[in-house]
C-alpha cells in the first residue's frame, strides 16, 4: 500500500483503487487539491476512486462542481467512483442535486474497497 500527502491531500492505493480523503470543508481550494489528486491517480492507472468524506462537514457549490468534474473524468477513463462515509446532511445534498445517480455510496472505506474489489474482479473476468 502506497500513501502520499501531496498538496496536503491524504491518499493511498489498494491495488488499482485509489482512496482520496476529502477535508472538513470541501470548497474551491480543498476541492481543487482533491481534483488534482484524483486526476493524478487516474493518470497513474487507478481503475476506481474512493473519495472518503469521513472528515467532511460541509460541501459548497464549487465543491459540488469539482466532484462532478471528478465524476466526468473518471467516467471518461472508465473508472468507478465511490463516495464513502458521507454524513447524512451531505447525502441529502448529493441526493437533492442528483450526484448519487452517478456514484455509489458506501458506509465506510472498508465497504467501498470490498465492493469495488468484487466489481473490478468481475470486470477483469469479463474483459478476459
Amino acid at each position: 500500500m502506497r500513501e502520499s500527502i501531496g498538496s496536503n491531500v491524504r491518499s493511498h492505493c489498494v491495488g488499482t483503487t485509489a482512496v482520496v480523503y476529502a477535508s472538513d470543508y470541501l470548497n474551491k481550494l480543498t476541492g481543487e487539491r482533491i481534483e488534482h489528486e484524483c486526476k493524478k491517480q487516474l493518470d497513474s492507472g487507478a481503475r476506481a476512486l474512493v473519495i472518503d468524506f469521513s472528515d467532511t462537514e460541509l460541501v459548497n457549490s464549487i465543491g459540488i462542481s469539482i466532484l462532478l468534474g471528478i465524476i466526468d473524468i473518471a467516467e471518461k477513463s472508465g473508472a468507478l467512483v465511490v463516495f464513502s462515509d458521507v454524513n447524512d446532511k451531505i447525502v441529502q445534498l448529493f441526493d437533492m442535486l442528483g450526484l448519487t445517480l452517478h456514484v455509489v455510496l458506501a458506509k465506510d472505506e472498508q465497504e467501498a474497497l470490498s465492493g469495488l474489489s468484487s466489481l473490478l474482479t468481475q470486470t477483469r473476468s469479463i474483459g478476459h
Partner: protein
Amino acid sequence: MESNTQKLVHSFGALADLGQEIADTGDFIEMVRTSLRLLLGTLAIRRGAIVECPAQLETTNPLVLWGLGNDYEARFLIDAATRDAFLTSDKGAFEVAEEGVVKEPALQSFLETHRPEYRVHLIELIVPMIVRGNLTGLVLLGGKASGKPFRSDDIEVIRAMVRHIGVGIHTHRLLAEVKHQADENRRLYFDLRGIYRDTVRAFAAAIDMKDKYTQGHSERVGKYSEIIARELGFGEEEVEGMAIAGYLHDIGKLVVERDIINAPYHIDAKQSSELNRHPAAGFEILSPIHHPYADIPLMARYHHERMDGHGYPDGLTGTQIPLGAKIVTVADSFDAMTTDRPYKTRRSFDEVIRDFRSNTGSQFDPVVVSAFCRALLKELNGETKERRFLKMLGKNYLNAEKDAPLIRKLLTELDPNTTATAAGSA
C-alpha cells in the same frame, strides 16, 4: 432538513461565495472560471460556458468553457438585431429544447442556427448576461446531474447568479479600460517629459553657445547636479529635476551682453553687475513655465547665493537657500574650476579640493560638498558602473591613487562620523 430549505441554503451560500469571488480584482479569467463553477455547482449542472459579447464586435469571445469538449469554440455571430432582441425579449433564459416559443425573429434565427451544435455539446439553456442595458455576454448551460428539467425556481437562481457574474465582468472591463487610459496617459506623460528634457538640453546648448569658452558647461552642471542629488538619496523624479535645474541654471545669461560673457580678462564692476543679473533674469524667464519638476526657477535664481549671505541676488543665508540651489552651486563651481576660462586655465584637482576646504561652510553647504566627494570617491574606487566624472573631466585629470586620499581627508574633516561608511574604506 427539508429539501427546499436545503436547496435555498445551498443557493444562498453559492451567491455569497460568488459575491466574494467577483469582488476579487485579481486574475480575471480565474474569477470567471470560478464563477462558472459556482453556478454549475449550485444546481449540479455538468457543463457550461461563459462567452463575452464585446460591444464593438459581432463575434462572441469565449471566456471559460467547462465540460464541453476541447474541440468546442463557443463562438457565435451576434449582429445588432440579435443583440437588441436579447435585450428586449421578456424571456430571461432560452431552453434549447423549446422550439418556436421565441417571438423575436432575430432570436429565433440565432437559436435555429446554433441549435444543432448546442445539441451535440449537450447545451440545454442559454442565458443572456445583461448589465446596464447592454448585452455583456451569454452563459451556456448543460443539463443537471439529476437529469431533471430546469424548474422555474432553478431559472430564477441561475438568472440571479448570471446577473452577478455579468456585473463582475462589466466591472472588470471598466477597470481594464480605466487602466488602459491611465497607461496611455502615463505613456504620453513620459513622451512629454522626454520632449521637455530634449527642449531643455537644446536650451542648455543655446546658453552655452553664447559663451565660447564654456561650451557644454550647462550640460555638465546638469550631470554633476544629478550625481549629487542621487548621492543625497533623492527620488528618481527629483534627480531628474536636479539635472534640469543644472541645464537651465545659466539661462539668464541669454540677456547678458555676449562681450561681457566672453571677455578674455577680469571684468570691471559695471560689467560684473551686468553679469550678476543673470540669476534673477533666469528666474524671470523660467517662472512662467509649468515645469514638471519643483522649484526649477528658484534653483536658477539662487545658484550664486552663499551660506554666509555674501552671495547674490538676494543675499540669503544657510537654510534660506533651497537645497537644490546649493547643489547647483557646487556643481557650477566645480565645473568652473575644472574647465578653462577666458582669463585662466583650469585648476588641478588638489587646488579644487583646497577651494572646497576653504569655502565649505561660507560658500558651499558641507552636506552637498560631502555628497559630491562621496560620489567622486565611489567612481575612483571603481564602485560605479559608469565613469561619469572621467567622461566630463577627461581621462588625465583624475588620478585615483593620488586624489582618493585627498577626497577621503576632506570628507573626514567635513563629517568625521559618516565619512568612513558612506564613502568606502580608506
